[in-house]
């Protein structure tokens, strides 16, 4: 019986959202396998609706499919109900386009967007019948690779992933596929292929590096096992975003997904340098796309998909230099086509409110702000260049413009945080309520709703806070309680994140190879879909740490010495450790660092030769 027959109606009828597994969406790429040399399974370790919303996946899918010799298909983590049926019926993990088993592909590539998806990677490999550990794979198995932001510290997955692609994959992936084709024709050994790609800039083969530890458990050294492998593996970036491949069509899913709209990427990187934010550093330097090109691209995408909404997707959209021009033009083009323009995460000032009015007409959906910390002192520590005055001005403008729902995002547990800073969060919430009350009744919208939302600070590699300790779970819970007690207004709702999940995130974000065994152990105990509330089994994780003899607090709650060797020190994201250390010291002094446009602070990314860094020099 073919796999297609085994994925029977009986099974599909018995699971939630069967359309997750059937494929056939508009703009899907089908190819004749007889004409294909390389089959690539692009795997997203989460469900369809999450994976399909990811812009990077949409780009790389079509990029690989531009090649005549290759066919890239999509694979998502089957939801638990489907997995159960698959295991019961001996159905291996399959790709959506062909419904062929992933185990017969040449490459299995995972997108690493968040640490808490790692157990899903293991689970998917297991479902595919591919050995979980690199060491157990042979010539008959696919190469397992990974990329995405989490690969800047690839070490927890070093025993699971054959090779990583660091930075932006557009160019690297084509070079790797070219080498593969040649290698396959010559029928050489598995290791020979890895050996060949190790010289491609941006490719990291963990198996070619040896890690030594100190007696206290910290890393002593990471060395390549042969001299020919680079001591430090540097990420790749695309220098000229205007001429980089961008698909003219994207898949239009049948079912609703998290971001069910066109996404236009305005720029990569971020000029800001908020000290807690990994994305603000690892994607540097900032590179913008030309507004005219973007409008052209939007038109083509709209024509090929029929989508009714376009959103601007970038880290901090307000920082795009051509934002005014771009939105004007987009509105002009899209309004007659009845396409709505969604503007996410704008810094709110009169300019952007004006834009929002234009873009969304009368719809006054909620506005979000991310002051991140409750007092000016702490906001200076994290280099978040927002003042209370800015914020109150912004919300006042918004209230006067008819908005009445405001969400404010904060972090608990930031370095140097004291209880005054937490009280400051409640205070700020109250001042927002006051700002509403001070707005003339006839101008403001009805039904004020202020939501304060806190997440727990997770220290991340390649940020100035990579040396910092995370608060223990107990302390975080206490801080949440303190904040709750300080909120008095009935207009304010308080939301918080489970600190247990942030704790594990902190372990794996800065984990070493020893933590990889814990991932496998936790998976063996049934951990998967950890970021999906009801599936999160914290006790199982603690058991897994115990059984592996790994202390999670060592990774999450320990403050590092400035001279400690980090597990990711042989990875070069273009940001120098010296710069990060300087930023760490400035944080403690509460000194602000200017953004890249105002002045270069010499982070190291100038080496990529992007215009923003050069102009500033």
């Amino acid at each position: 019986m073919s796999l297609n027959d085994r994925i029977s109606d009986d099974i599909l009828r018995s699971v939630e959202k069967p359309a997750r597994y059937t494929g056939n969406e508009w703009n899907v790429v089908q190819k004749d396998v007889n004409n294909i040399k390389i089959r690539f399974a692009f795997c997203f370790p989460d469900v369809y609706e999450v994976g399909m919303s990811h812009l990077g996946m949409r780009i790389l899918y079509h990029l690989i499919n531009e090649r005549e010799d290759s066919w890239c298909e999509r694979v998502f983590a089957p939801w638990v109900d489907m997995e159960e049926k698959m295991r019961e019926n001996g159905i291996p993990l399959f790709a959506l386009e062909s419904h062929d088993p992933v185990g017969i592909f040449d490459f299995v590539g995972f997108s690493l967007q968040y640490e808490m998806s790692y157990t899903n990677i293991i689970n998917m490999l297991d479902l595919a019948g591919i050995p979980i550990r690199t060491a157990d794979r042979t010539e008959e198995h696919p190469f397992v690779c990974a990329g995405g932001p989490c690969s800047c510290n690839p070490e927890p997955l070093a025993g699971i992933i054959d090779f990583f692609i660091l930075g932006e994959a557009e160019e690297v992936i084509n070079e790797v596929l070219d080498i593969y084709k040649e290698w396959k024709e010559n029928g050489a050994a598995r290791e020979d292929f890895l050996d060949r790609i190790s010289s491609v800039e941006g490719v990291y083969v963990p198996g070619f590096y040896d890690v030594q530890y100190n007696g206290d458990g910290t890393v002593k050294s990471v060395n390549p096992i042969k001299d020919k492998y680079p001591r430090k593996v540097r990420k790749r970036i695309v220098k000229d975003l205007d001429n980089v491949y961008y698909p003219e069509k994207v898949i239009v899913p049948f079912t609703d997904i998290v971001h069910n709209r066109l996404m236009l990427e305005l720029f990569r990187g971020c000029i800001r340098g908020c000290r807690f934010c990994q994305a603000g550093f690892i994607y540097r330097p900032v590179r913008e796309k030309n507004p005219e090109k973007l409008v052209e691209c939007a038109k083509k995408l709209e024509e090929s998909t029929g989508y009714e909404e376009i959103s601007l997707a970038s880290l901090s959209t307000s920082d795009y230099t051509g934002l005014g021009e771009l939105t004007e033009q987009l509105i002009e083009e899209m309004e007659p086509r009845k396409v709505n323009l969604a503007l996410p995460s704008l810094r709110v000032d009169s300019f952007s409110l004006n834009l929002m009015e234009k873009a969304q007409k009368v719809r006054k959906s909620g506005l979000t702000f991310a002051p991140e910390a409750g007092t000016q002192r702490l906001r200076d520590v994290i280099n978040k260049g927002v003042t209370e005055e800015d914020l109150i001005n912004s919300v006042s403008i918004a209230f006067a413009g008819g908005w009445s729902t405001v969400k404010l995002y904060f972090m608990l547990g930031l370095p140097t945080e004291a209880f005054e800073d937490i009280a400051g969060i409640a205070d700020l919430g109250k001042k927002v309520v006051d700002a509403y009350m001070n707005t003339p009744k006839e101008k403001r919208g009805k039904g004020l709703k202020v939501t304060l939302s806190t997440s727990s600070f997770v220290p991340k590699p390649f940020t100035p806070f990579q040396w910092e300790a995370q608060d223990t779970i107990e302390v975080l819970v206490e801080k949440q309680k303190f904040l709750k007690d300080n909120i008095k207004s009935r207009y304010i709702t308080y939301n918080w994140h489970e600190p247990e999940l942030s704790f594990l995130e902190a372990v794996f974000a800065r984990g070493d190879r020893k933590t990889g065994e814990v991932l496998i152990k936790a998976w063996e105990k049934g951990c998967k879909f950890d970021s999906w509330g009801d599936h999160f089994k914290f006790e199982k994780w603690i058991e897994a740490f115990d059984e592996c003899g790994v202390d999670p607090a060592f990774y999450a709650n320990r403050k590092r010495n400035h001279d400690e060797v980090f597990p990711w020190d042989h990875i070069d994201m273009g940001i120098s450790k010296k710069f990060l250390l300087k930023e760490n010291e400035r944080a403690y002094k509460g000194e602000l660092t200017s953004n890249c446009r105002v002045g270069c602070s010499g982070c190291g990314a100038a080496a990529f030769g992007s215009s923003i860094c050069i102009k500033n020099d």
Partner: protein
Amino acid sequence: MNGLRIKFLRGEEVKYISHLDLMKVFERALRRARLPVAYSQGFNPHPEMIFGLPLSVGVTSEAEYADFGLEGNVSPADFMRRLNAQLPAGLKVLEAKKKFAKDNIMASITMASYRITVSAEGHFDREFLQEKINDFIERPTIIVKKETKSKVRDVDIKPMIHQLCLGDSEEGTFTVNSLLSAGSSANLKPELLYDAFADTFGPGIKLKAIHRTGLFVSRNGVMVDPMDDRVLEGTNPKR
């Protein structure tokens, strides 16, 4: 208003998408085809588009209908050709005609016919099947449990079954053809009918597939095809 009615089929490839998602598929296909469909006013405009009776997830059909309001000129033939070019595999417009009548398709449906395919393990000869079906339909009442949001209640579905007969049968499977009440005043889902008659055959049978073969509107008490000219012309045929 200037309107069109289409008949389309919904095949295996798209049978697992919900009714709401199907409407989205059409909405986007209409946009890609740049067809001059009328849109509702407001800041969240929707195309004027009304579908016949929703199909349950997993059911295929060769007789689906939809009405569209137009705000420009396009011939039915053109509409059909351009829309078909933009529909994904598994959806195909079979026919398109101008519609003058006011009644929309959803409000006017009264009956639907289905082919229910059953897989039968063990010995089921035609005679046996025929006899069981006859027994079933000759019951004075056919009571099933119907679940609504708040409670489960007993309903007699017999008045909603207008025809029930054995179709093909071969080793391992057989089909049952049915004509059932459909629409807003009385509606019997084929799944419910299957659940009701499944017991009469004893163990060893399993629902394999449901396929809608027809949808009908009634005109002066007679069942007619929704694409029938008399239906589409409405009360003012000379317009």
